[in-house]
């Protein structure tokens, strides 16, 4: 670029022309670089898939980082800078949506899901924790009429429940029906 062209390029309206007065202190040096990275990480690269401006290698993200650096060096605050990009690209440019209106759902839904899941697990544990012996006696204890089949059922009960001979141990309720 020629010197004349460079001089004309400098005519460009400075970044942040519609941001009002800077609300912070001008940054420089290492702090400026650190803050540039931090604020750029709050912005979504508009042409990337889920990458922040800080992480994206594309030209547009590079230009946006340069602009963030310039605005920080002029004393603009994080919120002013993010709002500046939002005014051009929409709320989409915020990697973290603002906590307003329906956006609360985005923040609260995972927490609500977690609590609901914990509730379901607790309920299932409490329900499944009851001892099998507490199961009331009922028609399930009846044996098939076929003697051969009945012997298998008794064997299965002995193995599954530890009932001697497959017969329900005598309880106060008097459940054992088969010998």
């Amino acid at each position, binding site marked *: *670029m020629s010197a004349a062209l460079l001089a*004309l*390029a400098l005519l460009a*309206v400075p*970044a942040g022309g519609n941001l009002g007065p800077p609300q912070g202190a001008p940054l420089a040096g290492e702090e400026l670089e650190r803050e540039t990275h931090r604020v750029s990480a709050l912005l979504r690269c*508009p*042409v990337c898939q889920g990458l922040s401006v800080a992480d994206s290698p594309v030209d547009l993200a590079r230009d946006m980082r340069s*602009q963030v650096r310039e605005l920080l060096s002029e004393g603009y605050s994080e919120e002013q800078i993010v709002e500046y990009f939002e005014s*051009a690209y*929409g709320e989409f440019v915020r990697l973290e949506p603002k906590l307003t209106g329906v956006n609360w759902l985005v923040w609260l839904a995972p927490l609500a899901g977690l609590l609901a899941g914990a509730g379901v697990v607790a309920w299932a544990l409490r329900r499944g924790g009851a001892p099998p012996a507490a199961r009331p006696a009922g028609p399930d204890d009846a044996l098939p009429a076929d003697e051969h089949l009945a012997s298998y059922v008794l064997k299965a009960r002995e193995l599954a429940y530890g009932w001697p001979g497959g017969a329900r141990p005598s309880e106060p309720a008097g459940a054992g029906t088969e010998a």
Partner: protein
Amino acid sequence: MNRRVLWVGLALSVPLVAVLVANLGRDPRAIRSPLIGRAAPAFALPTADGAASVDLTELRGRVVVLNFWATWCIPCFEEHEVLARGAEQFADRAQFLGVVYQDEVEKVHRYLERFGQSYPSLLDEGGQTAIAYGVGGVPETYFISPDGVIVEKYEGALTSRALSALVESAARHGAGS
């Protein structure tokens, strides 16, 4: 199934499925520009030949058709003729401007020499103006009313019909209707 579990499951899954279905055919990138209806961001940029600069604020009273383009962009090439004809057709009431997006000056010179230009193309060193307009790709064209408000943004290669309609729309906005 336990009826309570069924209701809890439905309460959790139905809203999620509804959100997914409602947005199934939607392009997440197709977001309406927040700049529409607002004052066009000011700029003063040098022309590609370096001979002058153009200040948007000095163009009040005319419709401004602001086209972001690049030499490496095929749709930009496709709409070049449409814009060139439009600039002549609406010369009495609209100022057409090109803003070069992420390109090299030498390539821009060669392109304009080869294909001609009927309106100024401006250099946006550092892409500040493109960012101020929320440009995410090219071509993108903004239609600015005579009172300096962005009336519409058009993404992709313009057709003659769309160009005419949007210039008329911007002109009407300026007339206060």
